[in-house]
């Protein structure tokens, strides 16, 4: 999944001479937390609602005033991504830099942003239930052809695979979570068990028919 698939296009932007109170009002009105700062069409910075609150807090050494300009407090070295970057790269950048938003740049122009909310939407898309389906969980050996065997088994039984999710299992195997188009998941699981697959769900399956 690429950044361009989860991107927010036409983000709301401000300029360095926007007043802090105006930026604050904009965030409230649009219900957003991040504002990229553009000057002559170029990305020159970014501010978040937290930057605004910290800068103007009574607790700050010298609090900024509502009439001050965004340019004074914005973060200037902005971390960005490209639309063709995979979303895991974007996720890693957010985690490592502890930030919640990445402007998306193409040909030195701002084309959109991705935020943590977009990442969660992506997670929902990857793990979610989009068609009526049953859940099958299998541990596969980490070697060529295992998934092909599994897919072949399902295809022969006219069972459609709606989604596949994989992650490393504890015993060096690969955990495969499939959503497949059948209500009779146990019949399928039994067949897989008989064919030598390690079935994790449904549980309490005995191989014997």
């Amino acid at each position, binding site marked *: 999944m690429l950044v361009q698939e989860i991107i927010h296009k036409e983000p709301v932007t401000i300029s360095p001479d926007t007043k802090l109170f105006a930026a604050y009002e904009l965030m409230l009105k649009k219900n957003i937390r991040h504002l990229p700062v553009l000057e002559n069409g170029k990305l020159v910075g970014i501010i978040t609602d937290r930057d605004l609150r910290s800068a103007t807090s009574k607790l700050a050494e010298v609090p900024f005033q509502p009439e001050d300009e965004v340019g004074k407090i914005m973060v200037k070295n902005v971390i960005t991504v490209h639309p063709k970057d995979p979303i895991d790269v974007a996720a890693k950048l957010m985690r490592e830099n502890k930030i919640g938003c990445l402007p998306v740049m193409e040909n030195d122009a701002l084309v959109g942003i991705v935020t943590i909310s977009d990442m969660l939407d992506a997670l929902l898309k990857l793990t979610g*239930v989009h*068609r*009526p*389906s*049953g*859940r099958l969980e299998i541990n596969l050996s980490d070697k060529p052809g295992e998934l092909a065997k599994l897919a072949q088994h399902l295809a022969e*039984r*006219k*069972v*459609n695979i709606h989604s596949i999710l994989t992650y490393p299992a504890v015993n060096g195997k690969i955990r495969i979570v499939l*959503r497949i*188009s*059948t*209500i*009779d*998941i*146990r*019949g399928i699981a039994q067949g897989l068990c008989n064919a030598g697959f390690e079935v994790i*769900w*449904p*549980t309490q399956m005995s191989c014997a028919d």
Partner: protein
Amino acid sequence: MADSNVMCGLVVHPKYLDYDLGDRHPFSPLRIQMVTELLTELGHKLKFETPEVVPPEKLEIIHDPEYIEVVEKAGKGIEAENFEQYGLGTADNPVKTGMAESARYIAGGTLHGAKLLLEGKFNKVLQFGGGFHHARKNLAAGFCLYNDLALAIKEMTLHGWHVAYLDIDVHHGDGVQELFYDDDKVMTISLHESGEFLFPGTGWIYESGKGMGRSLKLNLPLEPFTEGDSYIFVLEKLLDEALSYFKPDALIVQAGADPHFSDPLADLMLTTNDFEKIYKIILQKTDAYAKGKVMFTFGGGYSLVATARIWSLLYLVLTGSGIPDKLPVAWKQKWEERLGIKISDSFHDPNPSYNPIPRKEEITNHNKDMLRRLLDMVTPDWL
């Protein structure tokens, strides 16, 4: 033996038996035959109302015309390239000749049941089939083609009735929920094994309706290996809360028998004794909150003998008849021979029916938490 019809309207048509998706397919028309014969052997004179078939165009109130056209063609053996797009030609919904027409007779039965309630001819109706709760606007799924329940509910709301739909099938009633998701005249309540573990994967508490239907679609996902006492506890509390608020003009119940412990497709642990209690609770709540009007349909249930006993029990409870200790010998012998299995002598399940569940306490607490969270979420909207 008492005349059944005084107590309860019964609906069936011989064409129901044509909803046959193949010898090895779990959704067997034998179940209708087994229930009917079991009750007859017990000495009950079943007087059935015969429904009319629903013409394809009348289904357009629920389904897309293109979907109906493809299903009707499939039922006549006419190939179409886009079967899969509509969920047809799969392991669950294979294409069989006659299935579309049969599905329309069954839909006609559930619709007829709704009319019996609307006209006041009966306060209780038992439809000997139907319950196709997975059928969507344009998708066949989970053995279901046409959503007979939605058709019946729609008929009732068009007459100005408020309808509560209760789905005790072990699978989430996703099709019915979706078709009335923003409808304020319909409350849907589904208790099912959690979508984390079971088809169709939906039925989370946060699926609570939208727009005018907000907080009127209630889902209680239950832990695998949930037993009768936990099930009955949450069911009774939920019905009291939901129905005393919504005060429907009638209750429609999809009475799938697949939460039974022996069901091969799912993991709940209800016994026939639990089903008897559940049916009695539903009737009590119907009298208390739903003007005494209720229709039950069949539904899932893939352990054939258990399903036959459970739905016979439903009839016996609905008609206030006595429940026998033993199965009729002739019935037992016939079906032992026919199915090639051993059938026990007793009508009810033995006690205990299965080995103790190790996680019982954890499961019970989890189900209670789920009910608490559901009510916390929806009740603030029930002003």
